[in-house]
């Protein structure tokens, strides 16, 4: 559906309509709001200058709704018309070690130290724990580099089987067991790398470059995106990242070459495509989920693909559905439900996001234009093959 920008009399609000729904950008707080139909009707009336009683009476009468229902809704919408100061800044989400210099940091172990590069960011990782150091070197060997110009010094200390992680001299994780360390290290490398880049919008999800275009797989943890990206990376293309979709202002993706985290529920389904998976060590997330790491078969060199290169995008919100035991009730094929622009933005933000700039009206409109031009679907599937088959169909529609 096309998005229409609707001029309001209230200068600090911008309204964008898509059929029955709308998005409001508040120019003072830099907040973005999703409004359903009724709220838009109330917004229009307040913007016209009508008073509370008149608005509630007329809407109650027109749509046969109770005033008790309308009053709290009116009050919420009315808050948009005040001019509160911006509470906080989008730039406050950078990790604390950006404020600490790596130059003064003393290594815990000068012998067991290795250097790694992710995107344009250089890390050193050192620890006295030999087993951990061996595991880190083995897993991150594709990232090894020889540069000594380090952006972040990651040191892992151990005391009585409790591990601590320091980054540029700051304690960032504590009270960890051995099995917890690797996922936290991988996460930190990922996050510091994209936060150091010139990103504008970052969303939780996987991104792959395929011969047919760039595939975005945003979604919450556990939706199936990492497993699906592991399947696709081995079949159809290169992986930008299995966790982070980070765009710069031109909507070029940031390449974050790191191994894919595969949760235990997917180990069996991937063991043919990744036969070494069974030999990989098991790590634990803090929430108890077990995972292993694998590298995609085709590791791309560090580069970005520009949308200006006429790269097509396809956005898929994966939704893995466990098959029922009764074969007759099983879903025979994947189902792709088109998502409109506002639903896509709501899904993206709900899945996890971070902004690398103060959200401006023009910045938001650039993002809106990108989503409007990108085909977006929610894909329900019960097997990787179902997903692959449906993706083939969706690419052909572009």
């Amino acid at each position, binding site marked *: 559906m*096309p*998005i*229409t*920008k*609707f*001029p309001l009399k209230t200068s600090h609000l911008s309204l964008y309509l898509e*059929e*029955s729904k709308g998005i*409001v950008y508040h120019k003072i*707080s*830099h*907040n*973005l*709001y*999703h*409004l*359903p*139909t*009724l*709220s*838009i*009707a109330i917004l*229009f009336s307040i913007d016209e200058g009508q008073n509370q009683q008149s608005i509630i009476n007329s*809407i109650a009468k*027109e*749509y*046969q*709704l109770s005033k008790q229902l309308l009053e709290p*809704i009116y009050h919420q*919408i009315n808050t948009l018309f005040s001019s509160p100061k911006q*509470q*906080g*800044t*989008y730039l406050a*989400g950078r*990790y604390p070690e950006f404020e600490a210099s790596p130059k003064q940091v003393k290594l815990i172990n000068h012998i067991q130290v290795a250097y790694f590069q992710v995107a344009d960011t250089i890390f050193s990782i050192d620890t006295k724990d030999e087993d951990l150091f061996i595991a880190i070197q083995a897993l991150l060997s594709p990232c090894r580099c020889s540069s000594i110009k380090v952006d972040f010094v990651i040191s892992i200390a151990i005391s009585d089987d409790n591990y601590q992680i320091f980054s540029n001299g700051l304690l960032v994780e504590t009270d960890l067991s051995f099995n917890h360390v690797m996922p936290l290290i991988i*996460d930190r490398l990922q*996050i510091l790398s994209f*936060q150091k880049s010139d990103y504008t919008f970052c*969303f*939780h*999800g996987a991104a792959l470059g395929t011969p047919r275009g760039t595939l975005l797989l945003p979604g919450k*943890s556990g939706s199936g995106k990492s497993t699906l990206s592991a399947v696709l990376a081995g079949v159809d293309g290169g992986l930008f990242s299995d*966790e982070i979709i980070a765009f710069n202002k031109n909507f070029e993706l940031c390449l974050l070459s790191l191994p894919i985290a595969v949760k235990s529920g997917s180990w069996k389904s991937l063991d043919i495509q990744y036969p070494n998976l069974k030999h990989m060590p098991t790590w634990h*997330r*803090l*929430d*108890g989920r077990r995972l292993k790491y694998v590298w995609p078969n085709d590791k791309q060199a560090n580069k970005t693909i520009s949308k200006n290169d006429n790269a097509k995008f396809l956005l898929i919100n994966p939704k893995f559905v466990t098959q029922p035991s009764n074969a007759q009730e099983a879903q025979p094929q994947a189902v792709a439900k088109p998502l409109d622009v506002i639903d896509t*933005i*709501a899904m993206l*933000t709900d899945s*996890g*996001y*971070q*902004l690398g700039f103060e*959200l401006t009206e023009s910045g938001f*409109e650039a993002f*809106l*234009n990108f989503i*409007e031009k990108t085909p977006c679907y929610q894909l329900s599937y019960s097997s990787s093959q179902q997903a692959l088959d449906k993706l083939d169909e969706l690419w052909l529609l572009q």
Partner: protein
Amino acid sequence: MIELKNEHHANTAEVSTDQTRRDFLNKFGKLAVITPVAMSVLMTPRTSAAPKSCRGNGTKKCN
């Protein structure tokens, strides 16, 4: 591209804006009865944070 409604001419913009409001309400008014939530925040500095897979486990939270 985002379509901009009635950007340039004040008088015709006012008439057209009013008509657009009426058109919106006429077209979608019936949907108003089934939308209980006033508004939801999509983006705000408070909720902008590095996306992570870890969900925490109650006693041990993710940083």
